[in-house]
């Protein structure tokens, strides 16, 4: 099984109930109004949003004639929506600073735990910065991850100024020649002006040590998120320079369709996906695989064609 096996497993149930119809529908050569409407409904049910879904349908109408089967057309269209050239974080002039941001409860700290595993395994020396100084025991949660991963841990305890912690961590990494710093920020709703200002301040202070930092700003979005995900991405983008999305909790039944809208509207690439709670459950994002998993088309290819 491919690297998506876990996600596939999770997606299986809904995929079968919801996308079985798509597969059935698309086996037909002709796309009549009713079929198209049904496909649109199914796309909306993935949280893609009405606008993006109708856009996909328009394209499908236009392009399906050029393919042997409409499902191939649909796959290509969805793929194109998600496809963006992007690079995985590369350490050129260490330390590379990665800031992880997002609204409350999306899985930032867990994602950081998984990211550090990835980086440590690549032979990097990692520093974790406990800048979520607001939520109870968030510092402790990150400390546990740093212990497990053998990463350095920089903290000033709960209630400390997060910008000061970030400054500390980046300075520490620079002077001790560490490779990567990952900053864990507190979950914040994009509607809270003062919290967004606080985030900007963290980044400003980091720049004092390394002008190009943070090199990566990853926005963590929960796959269960509905249309608010697009608003979140917009607002976070306005505040800081988002370089990529991490889409978490794809091991559930939610399909994370909101990333289609985010990539399409805002042009931010999806870089990683979270497919479970275990330390290994973070995968680099692959558009084609994501679409296959979403539509459940690999079975179609195996069994029905």
């Amino acid at each position: 099984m491919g690297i998506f096996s876990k996600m596939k497993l999770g997606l299986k149930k809904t995929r079968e109930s919801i996308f079985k119809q798509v597969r059935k529908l698309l086996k037909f050569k002709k796309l009549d109004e009713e079929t198209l409407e049904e496909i649109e409904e199914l796309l909306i049910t993935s949280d893609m949003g009405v606008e993006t879904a109708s856009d996909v349908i328009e394209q499908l109408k236009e392009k399906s004639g050029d393919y042997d089967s409409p499902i191939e057309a649909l796959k290509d269209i969805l793929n194109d929506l998600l496809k963006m050239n992007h690079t995985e974080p590369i350490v050129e002039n260490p330390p590379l600073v990665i800031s992880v941001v997002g609204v409350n409860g999306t899985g930032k700290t867990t994602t950081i735990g998984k990211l550090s595993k990835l980086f440590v395994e690549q032979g990097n020396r990692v520093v974790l910065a406990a800048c979520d100084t607001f939520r109870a025991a968030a510092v402790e949660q990150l400390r546990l991850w740093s212990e497990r991963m053998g990463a350095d841990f920089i903290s000033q305890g709960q209630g400390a100024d997060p910008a000061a912690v970030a400054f500390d961590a980046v300075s520490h990494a620079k002077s001790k020649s560490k490779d990567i710093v990952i900053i864990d920020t507190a979950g914040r709703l994009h509607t809270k002006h003062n919290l967004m200002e606080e985030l900007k301040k963290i980044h400003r202070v980091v720049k004092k040590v390394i002008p190009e930092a943070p090199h990566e700003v990853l926005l963590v979005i929960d796959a269960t998120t509905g249309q608010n995900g697009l608003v979140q991405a917009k607002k976070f983008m306005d505040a800081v320079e988002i370089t990529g999305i991490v889409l978490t909790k794809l091991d559930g039944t939610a399909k994370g369709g909101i990333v289609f809208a985010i990539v399409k509207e805002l042009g931010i690439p999806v870089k990683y996906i979270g497919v479970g709670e275990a330390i290994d459950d973070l995968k680099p994002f692959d558009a084609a695989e994501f679409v296959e998993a979403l539509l459940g088309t690999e079975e179609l290819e195996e069994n029905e064609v």
Partner: protein
Amino acid sequence: MFENLQEKLTRAFKSISGKGRISEKNIKDAVRQVKLSLLEADVNFKVVKEFIKDVQEKALGEDVLSSFTPDQQFIKIVRDELIRVLGEKSVPLSLSSKPAKIMMVGLQGSGKTTTSAKLAARFKKEGKKVLLVAADVYRPAAIDQLIQLGKQIDVPVFVGDRQHPLKIVTKAMEEAIKNIVDVVIFDTAGRLHIDEKMMDELKKIAGQLDPDEILMVVDAMTGQDAVNSAKSFNEALELTGFVVTKLDGDARGGVILSIRHVTGKPVKFIGISEKIDGLEPFYPDRVVGRILGMGDVLSLIDKIQQNIDMEKAKKLEEKFAKNKFDLEDFLEQLRQIKKMGSIGDLMEMIPGAPKEVDLSSGEKNLKRTEAIISSMTKEERKNPKMINYSRKLRIAKGSGTNLTEVNRVLKSYDQMKSMMKALNSKKSKFSKLFKGLPF
């Protein structure tokens, strides 16, 4: 896109004159608009379809009130129906056992631990003795999180062996009984509804505790999948209700309608801040505008409605003063009452109001009453005393009813008239209560 549609709709409103009855054709725009708006708010697709279908069925054929366009009236009906579906009142916790047990469940990161502490703080404020129980042994530092929150609000936190949820909750109950605690709140680990092993654990805990309340904590930003998780949790645990968190953001919160629709269980509280005091009882009427969107249209509708009500109330008041309350006013009266709820309830609230008056039949049979009154001549409506046997026969025939029905209407009218008289004469006592009411 949203704004655009709203503009379009407002323009559409202006071009249609508000006459006739609601038909599928004359509310097409509004139906589309409402559907889109609900989808934008993240109400589940199937739920939107079913909800709109129900409302449409109810609305079709209804008279369009003057001053409203069919579209406007339909949206008004949608709003009223939304309030009805979400439950008209806020539903309080039902805590009968001693100690009372509340179990918090939900997906990862929805806000269970924070909400547990918020609830504990609320009970403590009411003077109750509370115990928090940390039954999330999986997520790193989850226990510490609850301990810290407990410290903040000065509520003890039971942690037991920090390893076995079932043992922890059992021991916690022993402790609670020993210390004569009033309310025990169990914070469980976040989990996926499709994780059978973890769902099984919850079932076992619930079986062991027999909680008074099992509350599922749901993030207001959740999209289409909320119906799946809510349904699964409800099927596994027989939830008693929901807490919807993070409503301090700008998510439209359509999830509230979705989860209510698929489980029938009420939302009991909402989370409106990260802080400990950020928890409020849920009042449906305060969120329908947010879920439905269409703010401009709704406030326009409210304005029109207010005007209608005020004008009518004023006219009726004048008529009473002159003792000129006729059958047409009576019909209007019934219509207004129907909108406000049962007159029986109303009378209950007024000390010293005559209790014997039976108007319930008049309310129930509004449609027939309307038919009967509209089969009368203008003269008869103005002066009901002139209605004799042969006139009654004609009216019954014309309205497709019988003499008993006609008599019933006339009797109700008499009763209301005399009740009004009585109330009028006690004006000093009642006038305040009746201000704003349509009589």
